[in-house]
């Protein structure tokens, strides 16, 4: 089982769109996939038409009084399941803080799912917190969407340095440019130069396209409702890069 996490300290950069589309593409490739919507805003849950509610809330999951398995819902797409968001996830930091070995808690919760899933996608809320740390410890590959600006790149460097300081398991980091606007000169320059220079950058970039915004209207991944669109093609390429980088076989 490989754990992918879409993570960025900033909001609105395309984390959920990435998790939803890559999760869908992984399932379409025949992998058994679970997407955990960790964001209390529940955008991924909304896109899959699943109510953002977990019995007992985040507390029951973190404390283990309710198994993750029992909270999972099937999506409308074969092979792709979702662990929905819950508004109580806003308190996950506090809950983790009171748990033993909080940074490793998420990995421990996912361990029993090893036999059921080939890939898990963690869609993280925008923050830097104990939850983020627990996600970083659980993940095999961090997918970091970045808007092509100088500050974004600086944030990535900070994240890489932070992860590099972990003892034991360290996730691999794969950054990619998201919401790229070809009309902007800065976007064009950064998005062209950096992937060529740095190994932690994916060659694929995700453009800013209105069809991606249509996901919230269609309530489905763009790769499902518009599989021949440019957006779907780019997510397809990004998935191939992420899959190979994570060493997901089969």
């Amino acid at each position: 089982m490989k754990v992918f996490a879409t993570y960025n300290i900033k909001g609105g950069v395309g984390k959920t769109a990435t998790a939803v589309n890559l999760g869908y593409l992984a399932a379409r490739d025949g992998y058994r996939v679970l997407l955990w919507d960790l964001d209390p805003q529940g955008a991924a849950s909304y896109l899959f038409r699943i109510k953002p509610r977990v019995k007992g809330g985040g507390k029951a999951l973190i404390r283990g009084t309710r198994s993750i398995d029992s909270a999972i819902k099937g999506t409308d797409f074969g092979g792709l399941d979702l662990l929905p968001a819950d508004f109580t996830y806003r308190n996950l930091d506090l809950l983790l803080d009171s748990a033993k070995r909080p940074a490793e808690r998420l990995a421990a919760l996912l361990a029993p799912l090893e036999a059921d899933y080939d890939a898990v996608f963690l869609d993280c809320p925008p923050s830097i917190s104990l939850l983020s740390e627990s996600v970083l410890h659980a993940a095999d590959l961090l997918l970091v969407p970045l808007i092509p600006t100088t500050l974004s790149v600086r944030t990535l460097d900070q994240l890489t340095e932070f992860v590099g300081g972990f003892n034991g398991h360290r996730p691999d980091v794969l950054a990619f440019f998201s919401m790229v606007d070809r009309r902007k000169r800065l976007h064009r320059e950064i998005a062209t130069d950096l992937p060529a220079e740095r190994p932690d950058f994916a060659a694929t970039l995700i453009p800013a396209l209105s069809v991606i915004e249509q996901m919230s209207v269609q309530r489905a991944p763009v790769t499902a409702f518009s599989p021949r669109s440019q957006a779907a093609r780019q997510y397809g390429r990004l998935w191939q890069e992420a899959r190979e980088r994570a060493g997901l076989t089969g």
Partner: protein
Amino acid sequence: MREFALDGESSRDLDAPASVASSLPLDGGLSWANGGRAKARRRIWLDTFDWRLYRAGLTLEQAACNGRTELLLTGRDGDLLAREVLAADREPRWPCLVSELPAGPLRELVEPVTGIRALSPVVRATSKVMQLRALNDDAKTVATLDVDRMSVTFPARAAAPARLTLTPVRGYAGVTERISFAITGVPGISAARGPALETALAVVGLRAGHLPGKATEVQLSPAMPAAVALATVLRALLDALEANVPGTIRDIDTEFLHDLRIAVRRTRSAIKLCGRALPDGLASDFKAEFRWLGDLTTPTRDLDVYLLSYPLMTAGLAAASPADLSPFHDYLVRSRTAQYRRLAAGLRSARLGELTTRWRTALEGVRQARKRPTVAQLAAGRIGAAQRKALQAGRLISAASPPESLHELRKRCKELRYLVEMFGSLYDPAQRRQAVRELKALQDCLGVFQDAEVQRTEIRAFARQLLAERSVPAETLLAMGEIAAGLAVAQREARHEFDSRFADFASPASQARLTGLTTTTGLTRTAGA
């Protein structure tokens, strides 16, 4: 997952998504949506000839849809236990042994159940499957409904009534229960009893799990005239014999020949022990022909036994290596192929056709018979005599007795067991099973002894033959010597075990159980034949 059976009229009503939606109304914010274009599915249900999977509560199906072929193994409640997607160039050619299936969880579950029996198609069908989705008020799919309209194409052609399969999406079991309740409320629809395999078989007039000619399943009543009852039992044995001929000729697995031989042996025993109860001269005409048939099958079966025990033999080698025995294995395979050709020619011959036709006609002519002796009297007399003979033969065996004496006792025990099973329906099933179990323990011991005796004699003959052919190295002959030594040890152990096994069988308690079997029918014991 829930499955529903439809009657003929309801089946006709559900021919399009719109008609399904109107025929199966939903409430509580639920609605049906079309799940896409109907799909064609080719289905083959597989089992061993003696229905080992079905009897173990398993259903194995090969399903092909949209260019993808897979094997599906389901349990008694219809839940999927294992799935194996078959590569286009690796689809099994049925019938085939389970060891030829791709390695994986499905094979691991099936192999212990089927053992050495091959899997063969029991039904072939084509289905047109239409799918609908049950949506909640958020337009989220909470369950899928497959409407399966199936036509059976083998072993006969017939259309089956439609069948519905309601599958919950994970996390929506509660709402699926509501949908299930709504569906069963529709006239003409009911919860399906048994797997689709049973429906497919039923429309062509067959029944899953039915095995022709099982001796203990022949129903007799104690007051039946002996001749009529005996003819009924012999007809069932003839059914078993004939049912196993095609599988033996096609060499599907070694058990066809084994079961064919059992049917022949039981027939010969019945003729020998009870034949005089049949109308004058009827059975004696056939004795020689059934002997011919038995003898025809022996060489191939002996080689089958060798080849089946070969892995165990090689595993038990101490000094030689398994590779040393390879030329011997090749020799066994060559010999088996040659013997099998003779056997198949004999089974295809007009002689066998004539034997079975004449025998059936003769048995079917036994309708009017003298009322006395009754079958209970015949059975009591014959079982009593066989019991006395077995005891007598066993008591004569001493440490100095030759192997032939034990073989004679084995034959007497077999006759006794065949009689108990042949007339089994007359007796209390629990008592009968207990009596057979005790007898079987002695038979098993005698079987090991005699098989070792035969194999030791044969391996000497094989060695002489191989030496004469100058076709094998000395290592092979040495390894064969080791096998012969192993057989001698097994035989000595069986001989050692015999005394206590026979003492168990001859104990007053065990003998009383056998005697009690025939006396509890309440009828007088007479020498019926």
